[in-house]
Structure formats: C-alpha cells, structure tokens
C-alpha cells in the first residue's frame, strides 16, 4: 500500500498532466474551428471546377483519343502515393489509422510504390517501413495556404508527365465530423473525369460554349488546376482532421486524469483517516498505560 506522501505526490502529478491536456484541448478546439472553416470555404471552388470539367469531359472528350496527357491511362510500372498526414502526434489513433491504411495499400500493390510524403508522421512511417520516400513536404502549418500546395502539385504532375509514376494515388484523412475521420485513398492521376450531373432540360455543355483561346487550351489550364485543388482539399481535410482528433484525444485524456485524481484522492483521504485513527489509539493507549 502506497504511503500518504507517495499518494500526495501522485495526485499532484496527475493534476499537472490534466492541466497540460486541458490546455492542449482548448488550443485544438479553437484551431479546429478555423481549420474546419477553411475546409468549408474551399468547397465552392472545387465543386465548380469539378462541374466544369465534368461538363467538358462529357461533351468534348473522346475516350479513345484523350485530349490531354493528364487524362491518358498507360501501363503501370511504378505507382506513386501522395501520403498526407499530420506533422504531430497526440491525436489519438489518427496517425496510426492513416499509416495502417496506406501501408496495407502499398503492400497490396503489384507494382513498386514510391511515396511522396506530406507530414512528418507519414514520412517517418514509410522510412521505417523501408518504402522509397522520394519527396517530403513538412511543416505546412496549422492553416496551409493554396500557394504552399502549388509546389506539391507541380512535383506530382511533372513526375507523372516524365513517366516517374504511371499512376498516382492520394491518401488522406477524410474529415467526416469532429468525432470521425476516415482514411481514404483515391486515384489522382490519370484524371478520371468526374461524371456530369446533367439536369433534365439542361443542354449538353460544350457544344453551346465559346472557348477562348480554344477548348484544348482551356482544358490544358483546367486539368493541372484540378489536380492542385484536389491535393489542396485533401491537405485542408488533413488539417481539420488533426485538430479535431487532437481535441477529442485531449478531452479524453483530461477526463481520465480527473477520474484518476478523484480515485486517488479517495484513497488518500482513507489512508490519512486511518493514520489519524491509529495515532489516536496510540495516544489513548499510552495515556491509559500511564494512568494504570
């Protein structure tokens, strides 16, 4: 049985831990709101872009004769995986879920996989797993800007066009809600044009449009931008997921610490009571021995 002094020290230490986790929880909660906001704010752009490309693809693109190299599917010799994770831990199972999902994906590919890592946790995982990490982007901050994503997209697109990768996937945590983040893996390149959602009565897209300078030029501008937007969205979801997961993890940690403090305090009080009783008995016993 622990001594009273040990108990007191333990209680203090748990309380200190609770203070730290509580502070982290509050910080994560406020950052989470902003990170989620940014993820929401980015939606209109990507949705619009998707709709435009879907329309263009449905009407002008001949699947037999793709109009742009980013649409061309070719025989796969090397697979690229853009693995997006947080830089930091203390966010519950988020990092291990992401790494497990990506690790399984790499293990089940028939062709060799090369990884482009965004975030330290994913980079470290693949380096440990002895998977070839060809590039890394870390320290994007809590609120990554679109300008920071441009070099990542350029690298991926250039490597794809140069034949370094023949197919590229992106792995990131999909932000479902504050409590749920789901690891997802999607094909990034070649671009599979999204399906057009043609409303009844709406004429097919491209025949009625004037293109300046030309459909081909517009497409050549749109497609790289589309890839960049998808990466940017994934990175924003990652940021929102990280703050949410951290907030939830830290809330659980604080709750647990408080629970432990409560139990320890109970034990401590009991022990203290017992000791006082014992001391009283000693005194009474001693006094009666003197009297007797």
């Amino acid at each position: 049985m622990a001594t009273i002094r040990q108990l007191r020290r333990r209680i203090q230490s748990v309380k200190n831990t609770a203070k730290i986790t509580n502070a982290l929880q509050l910080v994560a909660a406020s950052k989470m709101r902003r990170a989620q906001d940014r993820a929401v704010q980015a939606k209109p752009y990507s949705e619009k872009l998707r709709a435009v490309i879907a329309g263009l693809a449905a009407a002008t693109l001949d699947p037999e004769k793709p109009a742009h190299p980013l649409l061309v599917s070719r025989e796969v010799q090397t697979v690229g995986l853009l693995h997006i994770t947080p830089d930091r831990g203390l966010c519950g199972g988020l990092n291990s879920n992401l790494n497990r999902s990506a690790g399984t994906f790499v293990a089940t590919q028939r062709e060799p996989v090369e990884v482009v890592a965004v975030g330290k946790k994913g980079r470290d995982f693949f380096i440990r797993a002895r998977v070839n990490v060809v590039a890394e982007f870390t320290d994007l901050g809590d609120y990554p800007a679109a300008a920071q994503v441009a070099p990542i997209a350029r690298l991926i697109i250039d490597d794809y066009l140069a034949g370094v990768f023949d197919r590229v996937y992106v792995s990131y945590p999909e932000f479902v809600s504050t409590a749920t983040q789901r690891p997802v893996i999607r094909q990034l390149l070649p671009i599979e044009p999204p399906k057009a959602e043609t409303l009844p009565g709406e004429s097919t897209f491209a025949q009625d449009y004037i293109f300046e300078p030309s459909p081909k030029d517009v497409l050549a501008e749109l497609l790289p931008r589309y890839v960049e937007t998808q990466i940017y969205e994934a990175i924003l979801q990652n940021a929102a997921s990280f703050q949410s997961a951290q907030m939830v993890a830290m809330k659980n940690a604080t709750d647990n610490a408080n629970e432990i403090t409560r139990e320890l305090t109970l034990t401590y009080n009991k022990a203290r009571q017992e000791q006082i009783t014992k001391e009283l008995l000693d005194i009474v016993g001693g006094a009666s021995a003197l009297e007797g």
Partner: protein
Amino acid sequence: MPLTVELITAERVVRVEQGVDALIVPGAEGQLAIYPKHAALMTTLEPGEMVIRRAGQEEAFVVTGGFLEVKNDHVTVLADASEAAEEIDIARAEEARRRAEERIRRYREQADRDVDLARAQAALQRALLRLRVAEQRRRRTTGRPQV
C-alpha cells in the same frame, strides 16, 4: 435580366454580387466586357483588374489569372488569387515588389543562377498590378490626398 457574378478562389468565396450591369475582365484574348445575355463562354484569365459595374458604381478587384464561365447570365470567376481593391495590403505589395526587383537585379548583375527569372518577373507583375489597382481605387473614391 442583370448578371449574377461569383468570384471564387481556392481558399474562399471573395464576392457574390447580384444585379450586376457589366463585368470587365482580363480575358486570354484581351480585355473582355460581359453584359447581360452574353453567349455561354469559357475562357482563361490573365493577371489583371476585374471591374464589377452596378447602378453606376464600379468596384475593382485584382485577379492573378484563372478561369471564367458565363452561362445564362450567371458568371463564375475561378481565380488563382483575388481580392477586392480595398482589401489590398499596399505595404505587402510594396514589399513584394522590392523583393522581386532585387531578385531580378541580382540575376542581371551577377548572373545568379539561384534566381528563377520567370518567377521573379511574375511576382513583380503581380505586385505592380496590386499597387496599380489599389492606387486607382484611391483616386476614384477619395478627393482628398491620402496621408
């Protein structure tokens, strides 16, 4: 029917305006004015100034390139980066101009191979554009000299 204009960047929705009389944008093939009942159009944009004209009032925006779609009097501008003239951070644009000029000078004088000339020139162009748009707006909206 007047135009509805949506100005959107990857990071945020910059502006949604209804009842617009005309929109002037820097199109790929030169400056372009869009009035109601414009034919459906899809074009790329060059870096430049975009002006929304409504009820005799003009509002200026900076657009650093992107796309524009017109369809049924609904204009969507998907800009690479954009802000309203009054949002322009003049100090930051000045700083960007100074940096870009410095990089170009270094390239010219010492043939510094680390300098990416094309990027520096693009940055300089963007900085000058922001300064010009901000400057024009100041002249247009205030009669008194700025301190």
